[in-house]
């Protein structure tokens, strides 16, 4: 065991193949077939992933205002982003705000829905369908539906508020309310995949645990606190990681509903990247912005993986799953 552990990871990857450099005829034919079948991906990886990745890394260090040729400027793009570009700072702030509120609230809402559906209740499949449907509505349409519902002067929500004597806020048109409105929009999708993953997690908790707790006289809250939540931590963790990555990349709903306004109050990171790339044709700076996004997402993911040990509970026999 110890010996195997001292070999670096990448060496073990090659070791298997190094042992059989001299291949039999049959093995050589098999190898050829193997390469043939993975060829679509291999070509795609080189041409559409690795190549563009390296190119955008390079362009991030150039001034490249299309159609003028790219010119090496070192780290100036990155310096510009962090010291001069106010829209960069604004978009990063807005995106962080959105992530900090939309992700935890979304997780709580999804978990609540999953707990409701985990009970023996009449028409469960119907409720699940209704909760799920908002998440399959295309994001462009969702933005339209919310724009219609929350229209400040004639929209249903504010008309209803007006009828009971309350002047509703401007929602998407108000600097103060635009972010909460986007968070509401995100919550409308809480019954989607995240809830389904929670539901699967809940159904994997062995019922013996609850029965044992009942024998010990545990109440509803205690069972939730000491069985459901700890047993659900791997699921919560998964939903948290994927939720944060998804929220960081919010684009479509914001592009459609507000375009970043009013006064950049909902100007998100990818919106900024898109404008620099597609409106200003500033390919060099946009590439740098893309790499900053990549690094931010990686940092978040690594932090979560590192801290996971402290709060995520993996049962020993399912650790390999």
């Amino acid at each position, binding site marked *: 065991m110890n010996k195997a552990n001292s070999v670096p990871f990448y060496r073990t990857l090659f070791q298997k193949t190094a042992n059989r450099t001299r291949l039999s005829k049959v093995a050589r034919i098999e190898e050829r077939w193997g390469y043939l079948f993975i060829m*679509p991906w291999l070509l795609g990886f080189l041409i559409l*992933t690795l190549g563009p*990745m390296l190119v955008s890394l390079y362009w991030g260090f150039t001034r490249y205002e299309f159609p003028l040729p790219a010119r090496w400027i070192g780290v100036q793009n990155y310096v510009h982003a962090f010291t001069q570009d106010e829209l960069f700072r604004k978009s990063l702030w807005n995106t962080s705000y959105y992530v900090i509120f939309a992700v935890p609230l979304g997780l709580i809402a999804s978990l609540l829905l999953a707990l409701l559906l985990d009970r023996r209740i009449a028409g469960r499949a119907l409720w699940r369908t209704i909760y799920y449907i908002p998440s399959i509505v295309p994001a462009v349409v969702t933005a339209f*539906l919310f724009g219609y519902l929350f229209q400040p002067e004639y929209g249903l929500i504010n008309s209803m508020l007006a009828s009971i004597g309350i002047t509703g806020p401007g929602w998407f048109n108000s600097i103060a309310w635009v972010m909460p409105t986007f968070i509401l929009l995100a919550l409308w999708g809480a019954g989607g995949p995240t809830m389904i993953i929670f539901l699967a997690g809940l159904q994997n908790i062995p019922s013996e645990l609850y029965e044992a707790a009942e024998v010990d006289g545990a109440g509803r809250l205690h069972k939730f606190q000491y069985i459901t939540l700890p047993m659900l931590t791997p699921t919560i963790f998964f939903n948290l990681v994927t939720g944060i990555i998804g929220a960081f990349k919010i684009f479509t709903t914001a592009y459609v509903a507000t375009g970043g306004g009013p006064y950049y109050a909902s100007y998100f990171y990818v919106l900024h990247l898109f404008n620099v790339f597609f409106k200003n044709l500033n390919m060099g700076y946009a*590439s740098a912005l893309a790499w900053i996004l990549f690094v931010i*997402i990686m940092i978040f993911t690594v932090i979560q993986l590192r801290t996971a040990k402290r709060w995520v509970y993996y049962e020993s026999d399912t650790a390999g799953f």
Partner: protein
Amino acid sequence: MAVLPKITKKIRRKQISWFGIAAVLLTLLLAVIFFFPLYWAIVGALKRPNELRLIPPLLYPPDPQWSNFVEVGRVVPFYLFIWNTVILTVFGSLGGLISASLVGYGFSHFRFRGRTVLFVILLATMVLPAEVTLIPTYILFVNILGWGNTFLPLIVPHWFGGGAFSIFLFRQFFANIPKDLNDAAKIDGCGPIRFYTMILLPLSMPVIITLSILWFQFIWNDLMGPLIYLTSQDNYTITTGLLSLRSTLGGSFSRRGQSMDHLLMAGSLIGMLPSILIFLALQRYFIRGVIMTGIKG
């Protein structure tokens, strides 16, 4: 001794029922809230223009205007947009499914040098945000290959392996197919291509259906791709078409004067109807797809 359990049981049942009633009511209330924006879109799509901005609002269409769905096609070529989206979705998904299954077959049934390394690289590409490769691929497609304003940049990339998730799913599924089947086929003189088309593909229908749904959703709902690659209106998809409908009708919802919201809602309904119908028909596969992949739209 015999009395005690009976009493506690009685007490417990009473507690459960109160909690249960509250839970059922909450379930119902949330269902109403979740469904309401869709209901309101249906109502809006069927109203007359002068019924849109009444105060208090009309909660139902008094005289449903089905002609709104025809009218929306007169403002912009909306049904052409749907056709375009169908073409993109069919050829894109087909490419993704075919190439991902071939690659999955290669990774699961053949031994070759560097297989493990390549598979680890494949899995690593899952964490790469698309934004990182977006700009160079755009320059490649539009300025080098001259594919601007064609469907090619939105179809061709899917034929190169169809993404790590699809390949991974196929590989896992193929790897679970008994080795005996493989050997038996070989003895009967069945080559790798025949084994793939005659045995593997028919066996993997569940995976194919699940992935088709995910592909459909992914391409049908995409905004960024059509936005940057398709510049003329006759090439628009549902998503860019809806934006075009909105700007033709005179901009956002905050506009004063005569409202055109009924047409926007009609367009929205048409845009989401295929997704919802497919979901209702194949719900089981949706749910399974989510649980197997964890993909969230």
